[in-house]
């Protein structure tokens, strides 16, 4: 173990970052794929079906209880689906603008995987006993970087729509871009109160997501309260915008099977199509991760019960590796819960009409978000000297 640690320390920092980055991407990518399986299973259960439960490699069939159980869960369909994507004919329609057509799925993946770098996914206590985040790059601009990079994702939709040179993808791309741009505003405005709260006047300001969780890691009073309890409206606005930003039902204007065939990815097939989906699920994962960090206390198990206290109970204070794992598990648990909520809503609510989406975004959510911001700005200005 120590030899491995020594080898790790002797590596060039760039190589270290590269390995860390690849490790996080190596987790994200299969998770994105796994979400598609979870989606299929959840939708099946909600519709009273068993869902995918057939595929099994024969050597797993030999394992008595676990093999059939995994088969019933449909775990191997994940591999079968992924493998199918790689093995299918990768057709390139003759009428498309080839360069941009091929660029679009790549562009979809880049922001999806780039935003991971600034999202802390766990924490541990360092040698000095201070909480340190598990994050690829603990940027001070944190949330701003997430918004800035993830909004680049709209380019892939526009490119895919335009380059396909076909009317339905075009309409899908136009709708998607209009929708993403309109909901971005309310999304950004809805999180501002959180950052007003954590940045005391006079101190050096920060938009770091780690700071947000630190603020929620207290044991009593305001400092332990999760922001969903103090700012429920902001949380709701953020969540609704998140649904719109990730193109999930009830806002899946970009795909809209009924009137746009498949929307912007109608002309895509095999792995190019798969990349769009992995990107969508990665967006969902990161979106729910950010929501958990901002409003649900990140890796703290309960309000007013921060991670440090749990570390003390479990005697994990001087075991950063185990504590880090525990924090990741707690964080991922909350994140997956949100993934489930995403799917739950998808199979509950029918799709909005396009004008309803625009109306909701501009006439309802945006004024609400502005009002919410003003209300909390005044409230915080009035309250802040007192705590």
């Amino acid at each position, binding site marked *: 173990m120590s030899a491995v640690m020594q080898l790790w320390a002797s590596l060039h920092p760039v190589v270290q970052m590269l390995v860390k980055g690849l490790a996080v991407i190596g987790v994200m990518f299969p998770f994105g794929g796994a979400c598609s399986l979870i989606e299929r299973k*959840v939708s099946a*259960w*909600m*519709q*009273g*079906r*068993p869902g995918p*439960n057939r595929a099994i490699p024969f050597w797993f069939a030999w394992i008595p209880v676990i093999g059939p159980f995994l088969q019933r869960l449909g775990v191997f369909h994940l591999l079968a689906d992924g493998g199918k994507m790689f093995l299918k004919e990768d057709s390139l329609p003759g009428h498309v603008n080839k360069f941009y057509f091929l660029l679009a799925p790549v562009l979809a993946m880049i922001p999806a995987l780039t935003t991971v770098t600034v999202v802390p996914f766990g924490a541990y206590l360092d040698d000095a006993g201070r909480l340190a985040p598990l994050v690829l790059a603990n940027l001070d601009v944190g949330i701003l970087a997430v918004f800035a990079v993830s909004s680049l994702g709209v380019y892939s939709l526009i490119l895919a729509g335009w380059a396909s040179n076909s009317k339905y993808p075009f309409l899908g791309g136009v709708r998607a871009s209009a929708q993403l741009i309109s909901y971005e505003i309310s999304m950004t405005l809805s999180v501002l109160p959180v950052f007003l709260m954590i940045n005391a006047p006079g101190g050096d300001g920060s938009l770091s997501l780690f700071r947000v969780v630190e603020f929620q890691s207290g044991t009593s009073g305001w400092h332990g309260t999760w922001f969903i309890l103090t700012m429920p409206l902001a949380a*709701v606005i953020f969540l609704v915008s998140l649904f719109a930003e990730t193109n999930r039902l009830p806002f899946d204007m970009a795909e809209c099977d009924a009137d746009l065939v498949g929307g912007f990815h109608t002309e895509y097939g095999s792995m190019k199509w798969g990349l769009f989906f992995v990107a969508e699920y990665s967006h969902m994962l990161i979106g729910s991760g950010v929501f958990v960090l901002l409003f649900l206390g990140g890796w703290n198990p309960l309000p007013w019960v921060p991670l440090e206290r749990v570390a003390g109970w479990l005697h994990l204070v001087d075991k950063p590796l185990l504590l880090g794992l525990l924090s990741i598990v707690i964080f991922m648990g909350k994140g997956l819960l949100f993934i489930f909520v995403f799917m*739950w*809503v998808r*199979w*509950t*609510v029918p799709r909005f009409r396009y004008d309803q989406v625009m109306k909701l975004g501009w006439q309802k959510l945006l004024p609400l978000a502005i009002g919410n911001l003003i209300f909390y700005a005044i409230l915080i200005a009035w309250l802040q000297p007192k705590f």
Partner: protein
Amino acid sequence: MPYVVERKPLTLSERLYFPQILAGMRVTLKHLIAPNVTMEYPEQRPAIPPGYRGVPTLVMDPNGREKCVSCQLCEFVCPPKAIRITPGEIPHNAPTAHVEKAPQAFDIDMLRCIYCGLCQEVCPEEAIFLQNQYSMTGYTREEMVNNKARLYELGGTLPDSHHKWDKKKAAEAHGNAH
């Protein structure tokens, strides 16, 4: 007097949207936990109700005699013309020689059959029945044509107490043939 549907204005909770969505989510959550309503088909088979109209088959009577006398009524009544019968004589030395005729060939093209059951309805000998078999598949067109052997294999023997031809033979022996 036309029936007027009253369009009530939306209530506050309906306009707020969220209570309605939460109510919907409660419904879907109930379904998430509820047992499945589907049947895993090849392993589990549905119970076939009596009177089900499956694949048409030819049946034998309890004595193992083929009941069809190749009267060709089913061939004539068949709306999609799926049935093709070649009538044939019964050899004189056969134990069923007292029966009028028997089909030499009896083909039902299952690619044409519409499972209407008119053949069963029209058959004077109760020789053709639409039974429980509901899954007919094949790789070629030829495979989808059921010949006589296959039709009897599918049909088997059905209980029958008429024994029409045996009674007729007995009556003839007693001298009161009509």
